[in-house]
Structures are given as C-alpha cells and as structure tokens.
C-alpha cells in the first residue's frame, strides 16, 4: 500500500467518524431544543370553555333564538337557510343589546345602536355589525359553536364557510 492510499483511507476514516459525531451531536442537540419547544405546549389547560353544543339544527325556528344568550352570550339566528351564532356584544361600547321581537331588531339599551336580525347595524352609534362566532355540525348531528373564532362582516368574513350553517 502506498502512503498516498493509506493517507486517503485515513482521511476517509477520519471524515466518517468526525461526521458521524457531528451529525449525531447536532441531531441530539436539536432534540434537546425540541424538548424545550414541546415543553412550552401544555397538555392540559384550564381556560374556560369557549365551545358549546347547541342542540340540533331542527331545534331552531326561523328568526332569532335567545336560548343561549344567558350563559353563553350567543343569539342563534336562522334566516334564509342559514343558521348563525351572533355575538351579543354591542360593537359600540360593549353593552348587551336586547332582542325586540315586535320590531324585529336588536336594540342596545346603552346608546341606542340598532341591528337587523342579521347583525348588520342600521342605527345609532355602532361602528360595525355584530360579530359572528364559528358554527359547525358535529358528526352526531349537533351544532357546535366556537367562540374563539370570530367572523366580522366588514372584513368580508361572513362569506367564510364556518361563519354559518346551511340548514
């Protein structure tokens, strides 16, 4: 064996051990890093429930339904084949409007903002329509309302799929 080939062999050997060392070392360090990353996502949390099951679509009649207003702060509104979960917080200063069935509108008692059943503002100081919450159907056929996801009309989000339920 010539010295040259021996040197080459050595070099190959040298490279392989060193590279195995560095590669595994880097991988292990990355693993430790991801440990810290995964650690930062808790497995359970104690946040209040922002989702609730709101019965079946058949339970709702055309118009505004107030059964979830107390407790969850949601109006279920069925109109033109769409069921939506409307927030009951006035977009003006955060008061709670009331539903006036005779006049077919939501009226905020604080500063008189008025909204159509659709949630669109039409009178008073309210700057924008009421917000919608995400609504979907569970496999069991129940309506699930998720208050963590908000859909705003003025942002064009009322066209998005989970802002309403076809019924």
């Amino acid at each position, binding site marked *: 064996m010539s010295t040259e080939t021996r040197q080459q062999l050595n070099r190959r050997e040298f490279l392989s051990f060193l590279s195995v060392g560095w590669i595994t070392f880097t991988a292990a360090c990355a693993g430790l890093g991801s440990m810290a990353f995964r650690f930062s996502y*808790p497995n359970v949390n104690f*946040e209040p429930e922002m989702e609730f099951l709101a019965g079946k679509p058949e339970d709702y009649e055309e118009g505004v339904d107030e059964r979830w207003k107390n407790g969850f702060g949601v109006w279920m509104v069925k109109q033109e084949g769409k069921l939506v979960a409307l927030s009951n917080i006035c977009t003006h200063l955060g008061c709670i409007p009331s539903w006036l069935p005779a006049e077919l509108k939501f009226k905020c008692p604080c500063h008189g903002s008025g909204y159509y059943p659709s949630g669109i503002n039409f009178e008073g100081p309210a700057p924008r329509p009421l917000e919608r919450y995400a609504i979907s159907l569970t496999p069991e056929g129940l309506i699930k309302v998720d208050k963590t996801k908000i859909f705003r009309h003025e942002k064009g989000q009322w066209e998005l799929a989970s802002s309403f339920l076809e019924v």
Partner: protein
Amino acid sequence: MAGKGLVQKVRDTQVWKSIFRHGPPDNARNRAAVVAGNVFLHLHPIKLKKSGVQLGYTWCMGGLTFFIFLALTVTGVLLMFYYRPTAEYAYNDIIALKEHVPLGIMREIHRWGAHAMVITVWLHMFRVFMTGSYKPPREFNWGVGVILLVLTLLLSFTGYLLPWDQLAIWAITVGSNMAKATPFMGHGGPGAMLAQIGDFVMVSDKNDVRFQLLAGRFVGEPALLRFYILHCVFIPCVVGVLIAIHFWRVRKDGGISAPL
C-alpha cells in the same frame, strides 16, 4: 496628622493589602493597577483616548444603559420578594407595594427605570450611528447591540403584564395579537390556512406562536407566569450573556470608537 496616620495604618494591614494590591492611585503605576486589578473596573482599558471620556462625544448612554440594567436587576430581585405571579395575588401584591410595603417605591424606580433604559438604549444607538461607530471592525458588535436593543424592549414588554391590571393585560393582548398574525406560524396570519389536512387545522389558536407565548388562547394566568419567567429569568440571562459579549468586543475591537 493622626487621621492620616490612621488611614495609613489601615492601608498597611494585611486585610487591606489582601484586598487592594496597590497603593493610592496617584501615580501612573497605581492608576494602572486600580483598573487592571479590579474585576469590575477592568472592563475598562487602562488608558484611552481623550475623546472617549468626553460626554459631548459619548453621551455616556451605553454606560447608563448598563447601569440601569443593573439597577433594574437589583430592584427587580427585591420586588420578587413581595410579588406572586398568580391571578389571585399579582394585583394585590402590587397594591401592597403601593400601600404598605416599606420603600415600595422600589416599584416606581423599577418601572421608570425600565422606561429610562429603553430611552437610553435608543439614544445609545443614535450616538453610535451618528459617530459611524458601527463601521469596521465593529460590525458584529453593532449587530449584538441591535439584538440587545430588541431584548430590552422585550424585557420591558414582558414586565408590562406583571401588575395584572387593565393596562397590563390589554397592552399585552394588543401586543400578542400581533404574534397571532405571524405568517404561517400564527393562526390569524397569511398562510396559516394552507396548513390544513381535511378537518385537521394544523395552525390553530391551540398551537400557534401566540399560544406558545401565552400558554393559552388569551392572556390568562399561564401567560402571567410565562411572562414572569421570561421577564425575571430567561431574557435577563440572555441579555447578561450578550452584554458580556458586547463589552468584550468593545475592548477587542479597539475601545470606544474614535477617528481612525
């Protein structure tokens, strides 16, 4: 005469000599020894160009930033004795500092100091830029400085939540909602909806960067704890390390800048 004799006597004791290896700094040798022989002072060079000590030139903003950082560390550690980062107690503990804790003014000093540090660090950057001190060989140190500036803002920002009042949670809510909009990594940011397989939303409010930051979907008690740890332990440690690098590089890159 007697006084002088006494001072001299003290200076001659073994204890004194074991601590201070040099005589009074009134001659060249001792002036060098003071700086070189003291762990704190030896951050400085033994001699430097005259321009480096002129306030009109340096504004002393970097030094003040470091000093305020130290002051904040001390006051911050003291405040930790009275402060519990829980939703039940945080606010009451701040009230306690305000109302009955002896020298609770520590909180004011800490808070205003934090603001002052933001200002001094900005002005420090302003000065360094104006004197062109980021130019070679100091490019790297400028980068370290920029990161320190960002960390200063983050330190202040994380501390903002701790009083647990309206000001705190809404400022942090506004701030952390930005994280929600991070492209691809926040559920309200562009690209988040691309990461979706069937019904399975991969980037949602339960797992995006904001959740990681707040340990929750909104600013709640876990966020308070997380910000507390970031504020008191994590970021200060990083800042400490970076400050060491920053100072070391100032010395290695030729001291306070001056015309070449």
